[in-house]
C-alpha cells in the first residue's frame, strides 16, 4: 500500500483525471496548492510595483493505492500532466501504514480497493 502524491499544473488536472480513470484508479483527493519547483519566475507589475511571483498555482493529487496499482497510477499522472516544459510537477510515493474505510471498517488493501457497484 502506497500513497502517491502528484503535484501538477492546474490546467492539466482534467487530463490527469482522465488518465487515472482509464487506469482504473478511482479513489483520490485533489487540492489547490502553491509551490515552487525551479521554474522561471513570473514577473507581474501593478501600477509601478513590479513583483516576482515565486510561487505558482499547482494541483496536488493524493491517491492511496494497493501495490499492484502503484505503477499504473504513476504512469497515469505522468501521461496526464506532462507538457515537456519546466514546471510540470513532481510525483512522490510514500509507504502507507494503515487505511480504514469509515463506512464498513474495512482495513488496508480492502479499504483502498473501490467497491464494485
Amino acid at each position, binding site marked *: 500500500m502506497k500513497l502517491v502524491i502528484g503535484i501538477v*499544473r492546474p*490546467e*492539466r488536472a*482534467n487530463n490527469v483525471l482522465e488518465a487515472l480513470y482509464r487506469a482504473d484508479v478511482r479513489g483520490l483527493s485533489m487540492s489547490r496548492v*502553491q509551490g*515552487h519547483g525551479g521554474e522561471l*519566475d*513570473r*514577473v*507581474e*507589475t*501593478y501600477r509601478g*510595483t*513590479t*513583483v*516576482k*511571483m*515565486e*510561487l505558482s498555482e499547482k494541483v496536488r493529487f493524493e491517491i492511496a493505492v494497493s501495490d499492484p496499482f502503484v505503477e499504473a497510477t504513476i504512469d497515469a499522472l505522468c501521461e496526464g500532466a506532462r*507538457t515537456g*516544459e519546466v514546471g510540470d510537477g513532481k510525483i512522490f510515493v510514500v509507504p502507507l501504514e494503515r487505511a480504514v474505510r469509515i463506512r464498513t471498517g474495512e482495513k488496508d488493501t480492502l479499504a483502498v480497493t473501490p467497491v464494485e457497484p
Partner: protein
Amino acid sequence: MNALGTGANINTGDTAWMLVATALVLMMTPALGLFYAGLVRAKNTLNTFMMSIGALGVVTVTWALVGYSLAFDKGNGVIGGFKFALLHDVTFTPRAGTAIPHLLFMAFEAAFCIITAALVSGAVVERMRFGPFLVFMGLWSLLVYPVLAHWVWGGGWLQHHGTLDFAGGVPVEMASGFSAFAAAMAVGARKDYGRQALLPHNAVYALLGAGLLWFGWFGFNGGSGYSTGHPGVLAFTNTLLAPACTLVVWFILDLTFGGRVTAIGAATAIIVGCVAITPAGGFVSPIWAMVLGGLAALPSYAMIVWRPRTRLDETLDVLAAHGLAGLTGILFIGFVAQHSWNGVSNGLLYGNARQLGWQAVAALAGPAYAFTVTFVLLKVIGLVTPLRVPEGQEALGLDVAQHGEEAYTSGEGAILVVPEEHVPVAQP
C-alpha cells in the same frame, strides 16, 4: 452669444437629457466587461474585461478622427464623406433634425460605436492576443460600424427606403452578432473547447453586469430619439417592459427544459430583451413591446442551447444574444409598427406590407456586410501577425500571459523587485 452660439434652436431640456444619456451609454461598456468577465474562467478575467476597456480607448479615438464622419456626414447612400473628419464643423450648433448641439450628438453616437466593438470580443475571449484585438477593433470601428450606421441613420440607402431602426438593430446588434460569428470562425475554437467543461467563474459578475447594462440601456434607447419627446419616452418605457417579459419567458423555458431557473440564464435574458427592443423601442406600442420581449426569448434560447453542441466556439454567444435578438426586433417592427404611436409608419398588421419588406432587406444586408468584412479583416490581420496566443499561454491564462497581472492574486510568495538605482549603497 458667440459665433457658435447657443441659438434658439437648441432645446435645453433635450440637451440635459442627452448629456445624461451619453454617460449612461458609456457606462454600458465597463458593464459589458463585467458581464463577460464573469462568464470566462478565472485565469482570463482581466483579459476579457480589458477587451471592453480597450474599446473605450481605441474606438473613441477612431470615432473622433474619422469614424463619426464616415457614419454621419451626408456622403453617398453607402458611406459618409470626410466633412466631419477630425471633428471639423462639429460644434454647438444643432445637429440637423435635432435640437441638441452637434458636438453632443457626436459624443452620444461615439458611445454606441464603442460598445458595439467591445461586444464582438465575446466571440474570441480566452485565446486571442490583446494587441491584434486592439488593431482589429480600431479597423472594425472604421470599416464596419460607420457603414451600417450610415445605412440606417446617416442618410444611407436603408434610411432612404424607410427601414426603421430606432437605436441600432442593424449597426449595433446584428453587426456585433454576425461579426462575432465571423470572428469565431476566423480565430478558431479554444484548444479545450468540446473536450473539457469551460465554465463561467463568477455568475455574480454576470448578473451585476447585465443589471448595469439594462440601466445603461435606458440611455441607449431612451436617448435615441435625441430629445425628451414622445419617441424617446416610448423607447424608454419599452426598455423597462420588453426585457421583463424576456426574463419571465426565459424562466419558463429554463423550468421546462432544465427543471430549474438559472442565474446565468437570467443575466442572458436581460440582454436578449434589451437587444430585441433596441430597434423597435420608439416604433411599437408598449403592449407590442411586451410581446416582442417574450417572443425574442425563443430563438435566442434555442440557439444558446444548440450552439455549444457545434464546432463553433462563439464563446459568449454574441450571435444568439445580439445577432438573433436584434434580427427578431428589426423584423418585428415590420409587423406591428403603429403610426398612432410613432408618427412615422405602420407595419403589416396595420396595413403597410412595404414596411416589413424593407425591414427584411435590412435583416439580410446588415448581417451579410458585417460578417463578410469582419471575416476578411481578421484574415488580413492574421497574415501580418498571429491572432492567437501560443497553446502554453492559453493554458496558463491570458491575464498573466498578456497583461502580467492576475485578477485574484494573493500576494503570497511575491518578491518585490526594487529598481537598480534605488538599491541603498553603503556610504563611505
